[in-house]
């Protein structure tokens, strides 16, 4: 299995222990960040705390308007926070000008300077910030272009390039500066799906090669899962959960994350907890299931508490009628990659089950539905996960 704990595996390969001890505790430290707009009436980000290691690929994930971009802009200095601090490599840069932070920023819409050639665009930062000789700059620009496979476009105007090439130039303009960290604000959102997949792989490879932290903002959970070593899920300006893609997928902290991550999304049923001796049952309008592997004494809800039962589509199974936990009628069947997603409704509640392609025939509309009961999640009334 792939080793997600990158810090341990990489440290042993590339950074000697002696070097590591000289590094600050964390490469990037963001403490208690708060940013409001319109004289404090709109809170974009609140109480944002995060540590990032030097070689980490961090993804800020959340629906639009959740404050992820604002946070990124505060880190870059394009916005100044109301409260909190941003510490880069041991240096407090909270109120430094963007140019003094040694960070690179790649924007969502392409921000190449249209009046300069690709070469001049990539060289821009070197011209502004360094005293390198002409030859040195030329060498750096050409190396970067080579790495990004845009060498042949160097003397063209940015408008003559395709969307993917333009965004490569943006990345090149960032890379050539050898910044402390890269900030990327939905850089591939405007690219078509195939190209986006390819760019994702490339940016990940690039991050591994450079060994520098990247903070990548996206609203696309699949993109986040593909790229992130560490995913930061945000909603309403607050961090909901920080974890590896595995943790986020398998152990969501609350109902929002459970629903937001995964496609098709997690099925949610409303019900009540029933405690009978040491056994725990969840009762909904349409069915009742027993929770295995948990004892009433360790259970975080009491008898009669309202709970949300969550279960991923892949842990539910379609079985012949009356052989499952309950029966439900098929609404539609869709192809989802190698799976069929089968959409059901039971009572008022819609839910989805995924099964290998072609395994379920929808000639008969009413089917039995079964669960892997050990994969059930429970959320309390405040939508926090309790099981």
């Amino acid at each position, binding site marked *: 299995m792939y080793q997600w704990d990158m810090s341990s595996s990489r440290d042993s390969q590339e950074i000697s222990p002696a070097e590591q001890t000289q590094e600050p505790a964390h490469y990037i430290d963001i403490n208690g960040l708060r940013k409001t707009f319109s004289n404090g009436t709109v809170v974009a980000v609140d109480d944002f705390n995060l540590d990032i290691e030097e070689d980490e690929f961090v993804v800020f994930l959340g629906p639009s308007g959740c404050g992820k971009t604002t946070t990124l802009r505060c880190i870059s200095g394009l916005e100044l926070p109301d409260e909190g601090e941003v510490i880069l490599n041991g240096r407090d840069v909270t109120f430094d000008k*963007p140019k003094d932070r040694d960070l690179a*920023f790649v*924007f969502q819409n392409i*921000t190449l*300077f*249209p009046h300069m050639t690709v070469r001049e665009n990539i060289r*821009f930062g070197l011209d*502004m910030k360094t005293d390198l000789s002409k030859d040195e700059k030329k060498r750096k620009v050409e190396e970067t272009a080579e790495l990004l496979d845009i060498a042949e476009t160097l003397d063209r105007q940015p408008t003559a390039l395709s969307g993917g090439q333009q965004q490569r130039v943006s990345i090149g*303009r960032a890379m050539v*500066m050898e910044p402390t960290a890269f900030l990327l604000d939905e850089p591939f959102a405007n690219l078509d799906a195939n190209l986006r997949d390819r760019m994702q792989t490339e940016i990940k490879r690039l991050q591994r090669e450079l060994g520098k932290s990247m903070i990548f903002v996206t609203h696309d959970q699949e993109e986040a899962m593909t790229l992130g070593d560490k995913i930061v899920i945000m909603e309403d300006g607050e961090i909901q959960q920080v974890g590896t893609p595995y943790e986020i997928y398998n152990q969501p902290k609350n109902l929002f994350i459970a629903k937001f991550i995964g496609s098709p999304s997690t099925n949610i049923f409303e019900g009540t907890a029933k405690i009978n001796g040491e056994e725990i049952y969840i009762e909904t309008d349409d069915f009742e299931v027993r929770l295995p592997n948990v004892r009433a004494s360790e259970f975080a809800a009491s008898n009669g508490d309202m709970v949300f039962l969550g279960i991923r589509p892949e842990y539910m199974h379609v079985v012949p009628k009356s052989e499952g936990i309950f029966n439900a009628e098929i609404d539609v069947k869709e192809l989802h990659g190698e799976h069929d997603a089968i959409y059901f409704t039971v009572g008022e509640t819609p839910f989805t089950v995924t099964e290998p392609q072609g395994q379920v025939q929808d000639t008969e509309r009413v089917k039995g539905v079964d669960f892997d009961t050990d994969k059930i999640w429970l959320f309390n009334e405040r939508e926090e996960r309790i099981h």
Partner: protein
Amino acid sequence: MSTASRRAQLSVSDILYKLLFYSTLGMFLLMVLVPLILVISASFRPLVEIYATDVYLIPKEPTIQPWIDGYEDLKPNLLNSLYIATGTVTIALVVAIPGAYAYARTSFPWKKPLFYIIILSLLFPHVLLVIPITDLWYDFGLYNTLPGVWLGHQTFVVPFAIWIMRDFFQKMPSNLEEAAQIYGCTQWSAFVRVVLPLAKPAIIAVLFLAFLNGWNDFLFANMVTDSRGPQPAVVQLYQTINGGSGEATDWQLLMSESLIIGLPPVTLYLFARRYISEAFAVSAS
């Protein structure tokens, strides 16, 4: 598909529409071209042919004497016109570029009402300003001076320039300046290195309009100057109407002078045309 069968598909309303379209177009063309052609024709005629009774376009004995006389007549005033127009352009750009940028990118108290006041001043009839400004210019010692004419023109040119440039700056994505700031620019150097070069179309459009205004304006220039001061060519043209040999107007001279005065703006327009359409395009490229 053959053209014949295509034509067969045209409905009556299509034909009517085309008819109306081209006849309107033709009418406007005639309205513009006929006087212009007559002016050109008259400017090459000797005086006897001006009052000829029969109608013809090509002069029977064409002469460039009116052009020579006209040029001699206007020479000092053309130079004044150039000074006036150039000064008007310079002041307008110096005031309007930073002003428009501030309106487009920064926030300050009373920003909106102040901007509407600027736009409102365009609606104000400028004729009404002529008397008070002339009076003030006397007091300030600006009467009969170049700066006096320059400043007088700004009452119209600056609001217009701010309006055009603000729209242009607003349409420019602010991410461009932000990118420049990330890669080593201050706000000021981002403005100089990125915003100004990209604002070229708007700047050229403003330059052209301000030049046109400075070059062609008669009202202000006539009021705040006299023959001892920097009187522009258009004012001299006005003298030509009343001048001549007493009773008769020198039409051939009047026409040649009109054309001489019109040439520099036309030339400038040919250069600026591309940028002007870009500046006024609905979406910024």
